[in-house]
């Protein structure tokens, strides 16, 4: 059994998760605390990947990341290679596709940090940045855990977007979901069974541990 696609999927999910935690931190903080009128607009944009069909996302990303697209052309000039049908392109597509799954939990956790705690920290000599790192962040670990698990798991499970943006290049863009699709198409049911079972157990184990941890948290 070729585990290359599984390994590639895990790499993609890990990199995407880490990038998303970085991106979702300022975005979630802003969404949780701003009174700006732009807030619902930004919220809607962040939530779009939840409702849009992956083919629509994939289609737009293909254009955007393609050699003629805004991001794709810039990347081509910078690195000399195209973004589409590359691992880097998959990372960008996954970050957009899984963005709401990282932003939502982090935003909720930040919104639950009492404003009074921040005020107290400021009066105790902490500037805004210090108060964020010493009060808001440690009080939001639970949100970060959820964001990490959900964005990782969601990236692992994507199919439509990555197929359209990345195609099916072994070692570069052939992820486990695409590999399974291929095995089924070529009527190689034994391999499809093995890979699917691995993914099923893996996903179940991740979500189960998340919900167990969540339950412990609620009981505290």
């Amino acid at each position: 059994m070729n585990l290359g696609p599984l390994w590639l999927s895990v790499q993609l999910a890990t990199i995407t998760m880490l990038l998303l935690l970085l991106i979702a931190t300022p975005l979630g903080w802003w969404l949780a605390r701003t009174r700006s009128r732009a807030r619902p607009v930004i919220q809607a944009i962040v939530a779009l990947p939840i409702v849009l069909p992956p083919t629509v996302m994939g289609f737009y990303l293909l254009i955007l990341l393609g050699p003629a697209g805004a991001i794709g052309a810039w990347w081509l000039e910078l690195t000399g290679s195209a973004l589409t049908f590359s691992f880097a392109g998959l990372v960008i597509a996954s970050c957009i596709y899984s963005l709401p799954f990282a932003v939502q939990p982090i935003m909720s956790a930040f919104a639950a940090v009492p404003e009074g705690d921040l005020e107290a920290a400021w009066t105790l000599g902490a500037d805004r940045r210090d108060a964020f790192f010493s009060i808001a962040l440690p009080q939001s670990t639970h949100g970060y855990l959820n964001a990490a698990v959900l964005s990782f798991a969601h990236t692992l499970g994507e199919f439509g977007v990555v197929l359209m943006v990345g195609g099916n290049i072994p070692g570069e863009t052939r992820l486990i979901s695409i590999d399974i699709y291929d095995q089924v198409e070529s009527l190689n049911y034994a391999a499809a069974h093995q890979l699917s079972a691995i993914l099923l157990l893996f996903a179940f184990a991740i979500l189960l541990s998340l919900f167990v941890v969540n339950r412990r948290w609620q009981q505290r």
Partner: protein
Amino acid sequence: MSSEQKVQLQYAVDRMGFKLNVSAEIPLHGITGIYGPSGAGKTTLLRCIAGLEQATTGSLFVGGERWQGDGISLPIHEREIGYVFQEPRLFAHLRVKDNIEYGMRRSRNGQGPKLDTVVNLLGLGQLLQRWPRELSGGEAQRVSIARALMRAPRFVLMDEPLASLDVARKNEILPFLDRLHAELSTPIIYVSHSIEEICRLCDHLIILDEGQVLASGELQSVLVRLDVPTLTGDEAGSVITGAIAEYDEKYDLTLISLPSAQLWLPGNLGTIADQLRLRIRASDISLSRDRPTRSSILNLLEVVIEDIQDTRGPTQLVRIAVGQERLIARITRRSREELNLQAGDTVIAQVKAAAVRGP
């Protein structure tokens, strides 16, 4: 008092349905009470001083240093204040010890009280390793007071720190505040709408109502003013300080000696020569022209009427002097007219007093 020893402030806030227009001087020693009804602007004033209130115009000098005004405004974290909020606002993810040390680690002058001193003073020795969620309301508020003190502030702002507690918890914390007052030199600005707390704790008093300062000065002299509406309600009364002169075991009474009078109070209130602060409510003093020969009231003082409140209501407040001490009595307008009481008259006051604070 030179500018090095006081906070000078001037603030104007104008928000929907609320105006604050305050200018005041607060001494940088002892406890200064800010008293007024709900909605008077007490909390807003404290938040202005701390820098928490956005978009204010005003100026603030602390010990002669400009903190705000003339285009500058120190950010909150650079104002060396301690702030005790109504709720303890402890950081849930830090143990008690780390909560207390939060401000200490960020303090730049290092001139603050010692950790051990504050922990002992507030009785926190057993609580240091606990989480905030394992504390009672009173314990949590004591921790938040310690946290504010350990930030080594120039002064501490306390915004009704007892308001969210029940009577039993209040009585648990008040003795700790007495000890802070007696043993630490950190000045405190104490906001309250409870005149009992003010009379017990404070040395200076500012009366705030509808965003305006109605009176300010030394506690005793502000309390006996008859022209401050906030002070002339049911709570009217005065505060005097005396020393224990004698304890009568047979009747369980303590004799307090004032500079020019003596008062009997029920109970054993301490040891001889202990200083006590007494609060005498205006409704606990009655006046008579002649010395009653058979009265149930133990304390009969010869007093001089200084001033009588000019009001058409059923009762009037009368300020009376016993030597240097000033007291306030409440009598009916009818009695005043029947006895023909006038400023300058010498009359007999019958007084019930209660101790508000121990030595």
